[in-house]
């Protein structure tokens, strides 16, 4: 038992540490607070059409499209702080996005 002591202590300490720190420092950020962005549908290669006529919050944009967040699906729509002119345009520094539901 003595020879396993340090290993078991390390395991217990690691489990306790992870219990205290899990969920913090999470770089995969959860949904940002709802802000109004200009939303554009994305067909896989380029932006196609704007969702609505001006900036909208993400929930309203989700209602207006067939997009909904699925972590492992392709991107469905991008949200930008500024209106994108000269469509179609490859996704630049977007502020948010939807993934397809399927």
């Amino acid at each position: 038992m003595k020879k396993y002591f340090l290993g078991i202590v390390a395991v217990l300490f690691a489990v306790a540490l992870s219990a205290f720190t899990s969920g913090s420092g999470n770089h995969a950020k959860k949904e940002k607070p709802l802000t109004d962005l200009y939303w554009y549908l994305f067909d896989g290669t380029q932006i196609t059409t704007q969702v609505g006529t001006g900036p909208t919050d993400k929930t309203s944009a989700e209602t207006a499209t067939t997009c909904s967040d699925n972590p492992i699906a392709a991107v469905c729509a991008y949200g930008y702080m500024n209106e994108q002119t000269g469509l179609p345009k490859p996704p630049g520094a977007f502020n948010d996005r939807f993934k397809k539901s399927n």
Partner: protein
Amino acid sequence: MKNSGITQNNVSSILIECISASLILLFVYTATSKLLAHNSFVFTLSQSPLLQQYSIPLSWVIPFTEILISCFLVIPRLRKTGLLFSVLLMTAFTIYVGYMIAFTPRLPCSCGGVIKSLTWKEHLLLNISFVVMALFGWLMIKKNKILLQ
């Protein structure tokens, strides 16, 4: 001569224990963090162009491999194997981090716990340190077994 040999063996044993304990701490901590925040882990894996297709199986394989290696490291008879697997696993992680730095530095890290708060370069340095440490431990065990024979 005999006394210095025994002392050296004690120092080596202590060093191997410390290295093993550090690796156990690292692997159990990161594995538990990944399992506790499993959805988030899947999400960040899916962001990587290299791992996107395998995000779901990898999200289980990686933490359970870490736990398995930790079990090897806890048991003294299997410690040498555990250290070798640690070297291999940490080398794989280091190569992945190197790839992320080179090609997709803006993507989030699919690592567990507070390691996510490190920059990619800091993470690379941490990984390299653990590779070196595990390799050193493995070589020490190998050398000690030769001395004891």
